[in-house]
């Protein structure tokens, strides 16, 4: 277990890693990183690093899950044993089960599942390194991997977690801010649709903080989705040049 930092801000109002309260960590993304998967993406938010792979639409491995009018979406969020400070057992925890559910529900509103009845679209997410904001980076990676797989979507999604530390609302929290802050509020949204598809709060916040945090998150999400579009566009252009 880490020790609580003595303070979260220096005299210039900068955070432990030198960022301002409304500043994101450097975001990097790459698609088509796996050969076997129909779509894949590697995304990092600072030290948080997430890999997503998409298989499908294909025949579901468990027949009873078939839906007659649309594709079923399968989502598995999983943390690699070496992704955390102390080794994490690879056995799925209750936390991973819940995050898999909320991520599926964050993706379902944008995936056009009714084009592929009786099939499964499977999204496998592996957190390779965790430094706060893994579920939101996972949403970004999943969105890219789905698009890379050519799955029709109403819009791209991206995620970012806002938090509250030492009474200040901050964007894109890292691990110490998550562990020792007052609140953690992950948000996933599809900016082109004006739709928030994942929204949670773990901690204590006033309604004004929620509003400020949400607006901060939505602005950052729009920027990440723009970056997703650039990444996808340049991945397609590369193929055409060949």
């Amino acid at each position, binding site marked *: *277990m880490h020790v609580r930092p003595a303070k979260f801000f220096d005299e210039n109002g900068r955070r432990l890693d030198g960022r301002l309260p409304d500043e994101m960590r450097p975001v990097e993304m790459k698609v088509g990183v796996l050969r076997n998967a129909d779509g894949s993406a590697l995304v990092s938010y600072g030290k948080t690093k997430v890999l997503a792979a998409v298989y499908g639409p294909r025949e579901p491995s468990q027949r*009873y*899950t*078939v*839906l007659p009018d*649309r*594709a*079923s*979406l*399968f*989502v*598995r969020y999983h943390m690699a044993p070496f992704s955390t400070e102390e080794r994490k057992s690879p056995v799925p925890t*209750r*936390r991973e*089960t*819940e995050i*898999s*559910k*909320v*991520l*599926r*529900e964050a993706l*379902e*509103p944008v995936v056009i*599942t009714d084009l592929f009845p009786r099939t*499964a679209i499977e999204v496998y997410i592996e957190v390779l390194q965790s430094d706060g904001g893994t579920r939101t980076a996972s949403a970004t990676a999943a969105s890219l991997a789905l698009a890379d797989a050519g799955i029709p979507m109403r819009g791209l999604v991206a995620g970012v977690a806002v938090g509250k530390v030492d009474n200040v609302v901050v964007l894109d929290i890292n691990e110490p801010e998550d562990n020792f802050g007052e*609140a953690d*509020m992950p948000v996933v*949204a*599809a900016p082109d*649709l*004006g*739709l*928030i*598809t*994942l*929204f*949670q*709060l*773990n*901690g*204590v*916040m*006033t*309604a004004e903080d*929620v*509003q400020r945090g*949400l*607006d901060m998150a*939505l602005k950052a999400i729009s920027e990440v989705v723009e970056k997703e579009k650039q990444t996808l566009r340049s991945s397609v252009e590369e193929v055409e040049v060949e």
Partner: protein
Amino acid sequence: MSYTPYRVPVLSKIRSRNLISLYKKGIRSDQRDFMTPRNISVQLGVIDKADGSAWVRLGNTQVLVGIKLEVGTPYRDTPNEGVLQVNSELAPVASPTFEPGPPDENAIELSRVIDRSLRDPKAVDLGSLIIRPGERAWVLWIDVYVLDYDGNYFDASMLGVLAALMNTKVPDYEETESGEIIIDRTKGSPLKLNRRVVLVTSAKIGDIILIDPNLDEELLADSRMVLAFDEQGTVVGMQKTGLGGYTRDELMKIIDMSRKVSQVYFKLLDQALQNAGSQQR
């Protein structure tokens, strides 16, 4: 792994259309307005073998909560606190769509939403549950049993948890010279609570927001928002659940609506607790 639910009760097209045309007139099938939760009734201490228990009804949704205290070891990072554990079961008795087996993602989500809403605002005084710092502490097991499901097990379960916590007695104990802890469950003192918390769930059906959805309303809903409030109206937890999404303005409106309803829940619960002693099953 999480997959799109395939075992969902079906609502006929004609009933769906009927209900939606009612909502457009501002009416719900059970005559409530959009902001009004269903009636609450509570029975306390229904399980003698538990250290605290409550059987709660929210309309036709019924939840039984049992609380047990066991002697265990505190977590390494909180050597001066007792341990809080929340587990919930969507028992197959409650609905034709609930399956036997270990808790599924819905039951796990329910447990974790309740756990966070109690833990983050420090609702239970865990410091009062330490026996010997770093070595021995009470483990507070909260087990939530959904018995009959007519929508909104989130709010009903949290009301049950709150009532059961208020009904819980921490047993007396003696330490022997060898350090053994002898529990005497015939005597005890009330569990200390720092704050009381309720959950307020709303369903979004098209652009309509309904508080405390019944089963039909949950089936029609695009998605649901679950908000946790303390008695001061501070937000102490949130969870969006279901397949749809929200606009920013909808969320801000829901927070406002739900806060008002949280005060109604506290009032209804206190009334139900006053009547709890004289209630007959």
